[in-house]
């Protein structure tokens, strides 16, 4: 199945997967392909390779999508019938803009942005990338300027971080746990309810008085905004669960990413989230058929001499260890996720981080099944 079919009728495509499997390039190639077919597509990338960023005209972090000029892609021979827009997420700025938007007035926004807890929250802390990526996706979706939004997800070891991290941050911002047992006053803290006494005492003993005071100042500043965070969180969840949102899982064919893909898929299912399919990158296709690597030396010895022919054969043998590994893992993926569409992309020659690479990947992603077979046959011989 081609990615175009998987994304039919979708407005949002989230590319998830564990680190180092080619998510960013896959996201960009998907956006490119959909734009080529006539849609107005916005792709939100996170930390793309410099050459890829340059290819898309993303010289710096910016917080609004910019149109990728068609002439950048034209030399490579792809006609863009729609529009391709791209942006590179700036988490700190996205967070600041969110505060600007929901703060009751500008001076409150300034105060919050100067708060120590906030500064840590919006920069250093893990989870801020995930939180702001979803925030950006939500805002772009609401503005409604695009036919399709493609979101690359932040690099993490665990694909599920993308769902869990924003929730953790949101529940912190909502301050539910904290509000339940303390109320900030002018000096320090007044305790609400008897049961909270040891809790608060313990909290202060474990964390130190200043931290508690800082947090309380922070929540005082947030004030009624915590409700907005809750409302937004509910809206974001609705967007992620919508039938017009598709999750594509990006993986390589190695054992661990495949394990993770299977597990992630199950978690999505349990959460009632729409699943688009799996893109398996860097597949080593079987070139051997029924032959043995030794047949290779024999076939080439006359042309290349024994020594070189043996080297070619030994390379071929190693390649086939990987091909067999990949086939085994893909087979497991198929068995574990019956009926889910798989799109296999071969292990392409170069580290793909430029327009040429993007187009190469695009060709596989958007090929119909039979076209893909033909493309693979070309690689094979």
């Amino acid at each position: 199945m081609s990615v175009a079919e998987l994304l039919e009728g979708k407005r949002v495509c989230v590319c998830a997967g564990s680190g180092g499997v080619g998510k960013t390039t896959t996201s960009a190639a998907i956006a490119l392909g959909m734009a080529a077919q006539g849609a107005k597509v916005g792709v939100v990338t996170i930390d793309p390779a410099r050459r890829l960023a340059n290819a898309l005209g993303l010289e710096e972090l910016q917080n609004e999508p910019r149109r990728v000029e068609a002439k950048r892609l034209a030399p490579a021979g792809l006609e863009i019938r729609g529009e391709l827009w791209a942006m590179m997420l700036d988490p700190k700025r996205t967070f600041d803009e969110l505060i600007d938007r929901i703060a009751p007035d500008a001076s409150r926004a300034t105060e919050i942005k100067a708060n120590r807890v906030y500064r840590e929250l919006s920069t250093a802390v893990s989870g801020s990338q995930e939180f702001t990526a979803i925030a950006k996706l939500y805002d772009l979706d609401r503005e409604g300027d695009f036919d399709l939004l493609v979101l690359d997800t932040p690099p993490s070891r665990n694909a599920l971080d993308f769902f869990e991290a924003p929730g953790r941050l949101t529940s912190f911002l909502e301050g539910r746990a904290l509000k339940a047992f303390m109320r900030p006053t002018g000096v320090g803290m007044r305790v609400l309810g008897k049961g909270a006494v040891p809790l608060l005492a313990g909290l202060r003993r474990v964390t130190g008085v200043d931290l508690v005071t800082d947090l309380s100042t922070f929540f005082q500043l947030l004030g009624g905004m915590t409700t907005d965070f809750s409302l937004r969180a509910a809206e974001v969840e609705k967007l992620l669960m919508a039938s017009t949102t598709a999750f594509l899982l990006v993986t390589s064919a190695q054992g661990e990413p495949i394990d993770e893909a299977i597990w992630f898929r199950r978690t999505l299912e349990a959460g009632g989230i729409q699943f688009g399919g799996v893109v398996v990158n860097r597949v080593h296709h079987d070139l051997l058929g029924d032959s043995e690597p030794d047949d290779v030396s024999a076939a080439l010895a006359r042309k290349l001499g024994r020594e070189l022919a043996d080297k070619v054969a030994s390379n071929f043998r190693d390649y086939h260890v990987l091909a067999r590994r990949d086939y085994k893992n893909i087979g497991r993926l198929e068995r574990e996720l019956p009926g889910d569409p798989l799109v296999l992309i071969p292990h392409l020659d170069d580290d793909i981080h430029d327009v040429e690479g993007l187009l190469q990947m695009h060709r596989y992603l958007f090929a119909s099944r039979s076209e893909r077979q033909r493309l693979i046959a070309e690689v094979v011989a």
Partner: protein
Amino acid sequence: VAELLDKRLVFVTGKGGVGKSTVAIALGLLAARRGLRTIVAELASQDRAQRAFDQNGAQFREVELAPGLFTISIDPQRAMEEYLRIKVGALGHVLSGSRLFHAFAMATPGMRELLSIGKVWELAQLQRQTRGAAPYDFVVVDAPATGHGVGTLRTPRTFADIARVGPIARQGRKIAATIADHDFTGVLAVAIPEEMAVNEALLLQDALAREALPLDTVIVNALYPARFVEGERAELSAALPRTRSRLARSALTAALSEHARAATQREQIQRLSDGINSPLIELPYVFADHVGREELERLSHVLEAEL
């Protein structure tokens, strides 16, 4: 600065998918072979060390994989419970039984990282705080991917700064001082010779320098063998159009393609060695079905020869 194996605590970090776990376990095997009581502490992965040794199940427990080699998967929630029990005593039990407190602590940004690294610190102490636990000579931390990895290393300092006074500040400062002690703590970056992984190793070097932390060694993982010299490549290219058999054509194509990849890798290693001030160690690509005990042993011997 002490040699890597003379340190007690070594963090292994790098971009996602570059083989951090593999390198961490191989280093652990090497240390154990040298007679050091060693533990591989996983911060973000799911029992990879146990699975590589065909064991499973034990969470947040120090499990012996091989003579002298242990592993633990650190879960922040469990680390918190343990910390509260040790530090706050009876009150700790009240706190750790409180759902509100859990929700608060787990939601506080950076708290999970602090708790995890606190546990790592505890593992590396000569006087273990966990009752009845024997000390380790060498603690290898399979750390989260680079961006988060430096964040994790920074967390104790951040918390000490935020909390200023009180037990967390004190604890934070103590851990931060341990991490900043170059004789005690080391950092090992893993990269594969690809553009993004190299970029990340270079960024990591800068980020560590900003925190005044050392970058001891960079491991360049998954290197293709240099099978063909340039003249041979030319021969293979010339042979391809004159070859008819499908099998032979496939083999020639695969050879040319691996040669091209190896060349790209060499360029990236050059970039890495131009930009990195620490020694580079190369590990070969493992052509195997999966990286299990046998492969890890092999890699640990390569490491041993290079370190």
